[in-house]
């Protein structure tokens, strides 16, 4: 073996050792330390903000769910409906439609969704807000806009035999403003709203 090959071999072995040592520091110690702190200080959040209902886990506060009639892809009128999701809220396939703002398929989808949402909720198509006719980025969006919640009140109240004002009060209670007053967007968490709805006693 000549000198330059030996130097190269020595350099590569240093490189590999450096990588292994730094892997231990940044790939083992760092994530374990963060996990330790997270589990001790923020146990529920670190494990996915799971919500319990009647003593069992029913989902995560942060992950949207499908509220369709069981075994179908038709929305259940008794529940507030989330934004459209092309993966029907399956956390194992996340991501958006990837369609451009002028894409003909997207144009068709928006047009049809607007018609469906308007008919389902008994409101004019012009009253349907933008988040109700567009898919989110994650396909797991847990929120809808306050405007989308409001156009669903009458339909939910009717399906459950509740007065509209009681459902409207519930929606009001669940409207969240922008974070710290100026960050992000106003919203309503669909799972929390629907769970509160299910706890509402009959008229």
């Amino acid at each position: 073996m000549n000198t330059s090959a030996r130097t190269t071999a020595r350099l590569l072995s240093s490189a590999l050792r450096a990588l292994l040592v730094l892997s231990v520091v940044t790939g083992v110690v760092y994530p374990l330390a963060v996990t330790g702190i997270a589990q001790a200080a923020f146990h529920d959040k670190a494990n996915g903000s799971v919500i319990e209902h009647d003593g069992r886990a029913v989902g995560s506060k942060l992950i949207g769910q499908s509220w369709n009639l069981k075994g179908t892809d038709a929305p259940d009128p008794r529940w507030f409906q989330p934004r459209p999701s092309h993966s029907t809220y399956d956390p194992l396939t996340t991501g958006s439609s990837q369609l451009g703002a002028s894409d003909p398929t997207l144009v068709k989808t928006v047009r049809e969704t607007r018609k469906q949402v308007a008919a389902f909720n008994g409101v004019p198509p012009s009253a349907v807000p933008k988040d109700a006719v567009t898919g989110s980025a994650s396909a797991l969006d847990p929120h809808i806009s306050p405007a989308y919640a409001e156009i669903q009140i009458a339909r939910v109240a009717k399906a459950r035999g509740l007065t509209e004002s009681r459902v409207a009060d519930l929606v009001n209670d669940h409207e969240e403003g922008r974070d710290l007053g100026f960050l992000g967007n106003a919203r309503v968490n669909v799972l929390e709203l629907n769970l509160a709805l299910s706890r509402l006693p009959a008229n």
Partner: protein
Amino acid sequence: MSPTLASVLQVSALVAALALVHRPLGDHMARVYAGTKHSRAERWIYRAVGADPDAGMRWPAYLRTVLAFSLAGVLLLYALQRLQDRLPLSLGFAPLSPDQAFNTAASFTSNTNWQSYAGESAMSHLTQTGGLAVQNFVSAAVGMSVAVALIRGFARARTGELGNFWADLVRGTVRILLPVSAAAAVLLVAAGAVQNFSDVQSVTTVTGQTQHLTGGAVASQEAIKDLGTNGGGFYNANSSHPFENPDGSSNLLEVFLLLLIPFSLPRTFGTMVGSVRQGYAVVAAMAGIWFAGVVAVTLLEAAHPGTAAQLAGGAMEGKEQRFGESASSLFAVSTTMTSTGSVNSFHDSFSGLSGGVLLFGMMIGEIAPGGVGSGLYGMLVMAVVAVFLAGLMVGRTPEYLGKRLGPREMKLAACYLLVTPALVLSGTALAMGTGNGESAMTNTGPHGFSEVLYAYTSASNNNGSAFAGFGADTGFHNTALGLCMLLGRFLPMVFVLALAGSLARQRPAPASAGTLRTDKPLFTGVLVACVAVVAGLTFFPSLALGPLAEGLAA
């Protein structure tokens, strides 16, 4: 609060936070890289590596060490992915195909973090945390080391030595990236990001359906993914996933992390060359371009041109309700201009012209403010060109920071500038010419072409974001994009280190009445114009075929 006011407050809060923190952090980084003391842990690391951290390296030795370390990174990451089914914490996932494993190894080692896979359904906990997240740290530390070597080239005189790569690598990782990431990760968990090593948890919903909730060491990876301008998401949905980015405050924290080191390094540069005003002239050029991008995309998304967006009444396709249009626009511009590539909304669904702005942000070479380290050395090379052009106008030998820019320096700077455009344009042309571009498109027409152009721009500039409709997981694209990422990362480093070496050898020339003042607003203006002209002339034809055609038709 009106959306406009909220939007203005959000950007103001971000700028204020950066203005507050860049000074202590920039000074800290200058001390870290100039220091001569080693902590006990660091000394232990140097012993394990078998390196003398005090030995000065000339540019060829510095470069060889950078390349050897990065090659080791590619090989180890490739092996982890190919063997993940036989290693612990596999979650039952199969090994990746050779071309996809190569693509991912190239991607994470080159600080690109382009992902042709979906994390939640392809990568084991060990691959994510012990492989990908490690490169998030060290590839960022490599970028910072090369930037510091170039700064030393300007600061030093009559020596060929640019410092010691091992010392720069270890200090950058241990003293800068680790502590900031750890603090940020805990803040992200406090906002709701997950951090565990659990298997998928199945729950039965109120309506009787089964939902699988995913776990992972997400917050710790999210923090360094943004801080190190990496961008590879734990999940396919990246920072739009509620477990990665739970609310408006975590979103602002993530944008802050993207911009933190790139906007602080010019202060480090100024301190190390002995005049902080030199750093401010550079950072002003970066900030001006970034701010123009933020304003342009925010206004375009608020106006939501495009047939589908008009019909929907807003540009909410591919955006999360908790962020809305303005926080998504701010994130999109910051991630494309920092070579990060994480996304909190999907760029494919932005309006045609917004997509053009995002593309242009990458095409200027990731310098406003650019990736950690790479943004600064890219902007300094551009400053060299700007000084040269200004020198030509008045007919005198150009000098920058007392160093004469002769034929050798200018050749190296020119080579640096040619690398990424050559990769972007020939890569796109090859993909389109062979039919591989068209078959990977989700969209049709000009927008489909934009997907291909975006992919090759993003890979060659080490950004890593995508018009994600682009079907990148084919043998052709995995290989071609993998090569673009490696060449786009390491060829420019060759020219930067050679430039640093030749600057460090020079004796500084005293400034005279005819010297161009490079610490004044006039120079910032020349620099911005230079950036716009170089990128504009190179890329205008390709932009005209994609985003401009789409935007003008809408």
